[in-house]
């Protein structure tokens, strides 16, 4: 079957088997290997991507189900060489060690801050509770997300600015 979707703003169209999972479509068909593939059982969250502005586990979503929708992966966080504040926060506060969980963590963090620009540590922990990190112990991830939130509150992003 043919699927057509927007991935990080680019329209893509491909012939695929209907059983293709979104995670494999993104990694193997589109070559966007920033999205990781871990537990394969919807538990670890490293495969998280956005479908229409919401984080979803792409190992448990068919590419066919995303057809006609807007998909955003970690590669889409940086725009014109400028890192998303969440990405900067992970650098500043040591939010990663091996980096395996990081793409999913950052996309979930971005979605949280879009809805809640001033989250408590508890709200951050709740937001990332479907995602597993085996390295950091989570504290630095929470700190990284707080760093991004603080930065965004100080320099509000101009809506509609080019």
């Amino acid at each position, binding site marked *: *079957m043919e699927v057509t979707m927007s991935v990080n703003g680019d329209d893509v169209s491909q012939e695929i*088997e*209907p*059983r*293709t*999972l979104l995670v*494999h479509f993104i990694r193997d068909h589109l070559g966007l290997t920033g999205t990781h593939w871990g537990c*394969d*059982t*919807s*538990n670890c*969250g490293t495969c*998280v991507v956005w479908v229409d502005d*919401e*984080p*979803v*586990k792409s190992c*448990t*979503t*068919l590419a*066919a*189900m995303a057809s006609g929708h807007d998909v955003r992966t970690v590669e889409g966080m940086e725009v014109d060489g400028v890192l998303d504040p969440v990405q900067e926060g992970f650098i500043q506060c040591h939010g990663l060690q091996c980096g395996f969980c990081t793409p999913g963590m950052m996309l*979930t963090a971005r979605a949280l801050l879009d809805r809640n620009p001033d989250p408590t540590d508890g709200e951050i922990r*709740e*937001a990332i*509770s*479907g*995602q597993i990190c085996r390295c950091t112990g989570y504290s630095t991830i929470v700190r990284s997300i707080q760093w991004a939130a603080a930065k965004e509150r100080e320099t509000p992003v101009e809506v509609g600015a080019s």
Partner: protein
Amino acid sequence: MQVPAPFEYERATSVDHAIALMERLGDEARLVAGGHSLIPMMKLRLATPEYLIDINDLASELGYIRVEGDEVRIGAMTRHRELLESNDLAAVLPIFRDAEKVIADPVVRNRGTLGGSLCQADPSEDLSAVCDAIGASCVIRGRSGERVVSMHDFHRGPYETAVADGEMLTEVRVPIRPHSGSAYHKVERRAGDWAVASAGAAVTMDGDVIADGRVGLCAVGPNLTNIEPISAALSGQAPSEDLYATVGQIAADNATPSTDTRGTAAYKTHLAKELTIRSLRKAVARATGQE
């Protein structure tokens, strides 16, 4: 790598279209809503449908929470996250927010639906226990029209419901009664996990006594809908710790859990009792304006 067996994919654009597709494709067709129960089963080849009918485009037609008069109507495509976040729903049926806070994790809750949860009918699935406790009924639609069944009739057993081939669940209806309260408690091993055990309770007060009370249990055995002795024990009684303990014991006596990685049968039976007590206590507090 887990990948589903081959199937053909169709997308329904309306309830009528979904029903027409089911009729044309026959009993080898399955609906997929959030896919967070079905796709894992397909990846493990526990489910091998020949046709998959995606009903996510029905989110606008069947994704709603309407509090109208003495009834709440919730569309089958309402996602867990919407159930969690709805203040209108929490105001009349706080049990939904209690449960949704501990169902899966926020990312899974973005996809999973009320209809998928009830139709999956996993004995460990929380919303069935919620819907049992609050005396919900289910609207099932097929080619020949619509029928409304109670939760008791909806549940046929583990992974089995009253929804027949060619039919789908479209709506859940819950009566709203004055002086009512509801609550849900779950014990899980870690954030986002399935229940070790959980219990939900709903009561309606008549002055100082409980006019009507129900308890729904989850993960402690199949077919725990509508435990009659519990409703009988609560009816007409004044709320008290002794009453909760008696009812908790009935819940434990009706539980038939198995020992597995989540806990021993004895521990789960203990939880059935304790969580029933806690949920009843809170439901009564809410019904009597103490919370």
